[in-house]
């Protein structure tokens, strides 16, 4: 049986697809056979972030409708042969996703994969609801920003009431926080909500802090998940996230601002 992870947030643009690509790659790199599914029907982007957009032939909806087999639709990643991508349909209507269809595909994937990462679309409509419905674990991607935290809180409500686990009265979905686009310098200046501020409201298990990093854009430009950029802070932060998820005890990094040359010169703060 595969473990099903949903990467969700409610709000758009906080880093769900970046995170999905990074952690799916991270899990595969650690030797776990992983599938990552794009649930954003009509606005697929995961294929771009993973750099396989030109290899898409069949998609998730084709599989649901029986127009293609799972093996025909799954794209093997070019960097890691344990990672497979199931792209969303770009042309179909969102209504093409059905609970029964999604359930079937996940069941079939479960036989062969260790982890299934579901990249949720923004919002709280059908695609988002189905992405989380079958989940075992939820990575709640949040920016240290007021609307993102509010939407995350809303998602937590939905995770605890509208999932299969909730409906069956099973053990609830395990919820983790991923604080992305964190800028310790701005936190220090009192311009940005701190990790403690966010945790005071959401109080979730923290999987990691992903610092605001230019390498995220560079990675998406190149179609390489940022976790493969081992020199970048964001890449390292995602590697930590994967390791923590798999049970390693690692201290959290990227919480405090770096002591830059200028700041040291001017006396700096501690």
């Amino acid at each position, binding site marked *: 049986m595969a473990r099903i992870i949903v990467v969700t947030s409610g709000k758009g643009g906080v880093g769900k697809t970046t995170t999905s690509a990074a952690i799916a790659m991270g899990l595969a790199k650690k030797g776990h056979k992983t599938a990552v599914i794009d649930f954003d029907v009509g606005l697929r982007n995961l294929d771009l972030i993973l750099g396989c957009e030109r290899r898409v032939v069949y998609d998730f909806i084709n599989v649901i409708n029986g127009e293609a087999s799972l093996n025909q639709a799954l794209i093997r990643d070019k960097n890691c042969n344990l990672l497979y991508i199931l792209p969303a349909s770009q042309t179909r209507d969102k209504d093409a996703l059905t609970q029964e269809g999604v359930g079937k595909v996940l069941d079939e994937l479960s036989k062969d994969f260790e982890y299934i990462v579901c990249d949720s679309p923004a919002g709280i409509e059908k695609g988002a609801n189905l992405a989380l419905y079958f989940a075992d674990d939820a990575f709640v991607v949040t920016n240290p*920003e*007021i609307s993102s*935290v*509010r939407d995350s*809180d*809303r998602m937590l*409500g939905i995770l605890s*009431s509208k999932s299969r686990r909730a409906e069956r009265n099973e053990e609830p979905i395990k919820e983790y926080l991923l604080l992305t686009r964190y800028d310790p310098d701005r*936190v220090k*200046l*009192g*311009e*940005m*909500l*701190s990790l403690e*501020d966010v945790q*005071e*409201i959401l109080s979730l298990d923290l999987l990691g802090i992903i610092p605001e990093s230019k390498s995220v854009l560079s990675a998406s430009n190149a179609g390489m998940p940022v976790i493969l950029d081992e020199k970048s802070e964001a890449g390292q932060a995602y590697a930590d996230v994967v390791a923590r998820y798999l049970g390693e005890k690692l201290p959290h990094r990227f919480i405090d601002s770096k002591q830059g040359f*200028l*700041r040291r010169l*001017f*006396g*700096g*703060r501690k």
Partner: protein
Amino acid sequence: MSLLDYFRSSKPKTAPLAKERLQILVAHERKFRNQPSYLPQLQKELLDVIRKYVNVDQDAISVNFEQDDNQETLELNIVLPDYQQTNKPINS
């Protein structure tokens, strides 16, 4: 205080404001999260019935829904107009 701090201190800190606004908002929204969707309609209809007999304000009725592990409680609170006040002309 370093030289850099001196230049920085002119900017007001907005993060505490964000946190305070969030805390209020989230607490409010959580209260309504698990409520059944029929509550507003129920409240409206109850108000209509009560108004047949007593003239009460829109906000004189409050419907609270609470959920514990094993039970759900629907609490209904109606504030009737003050008898003394409404009948003041008689007393004076």
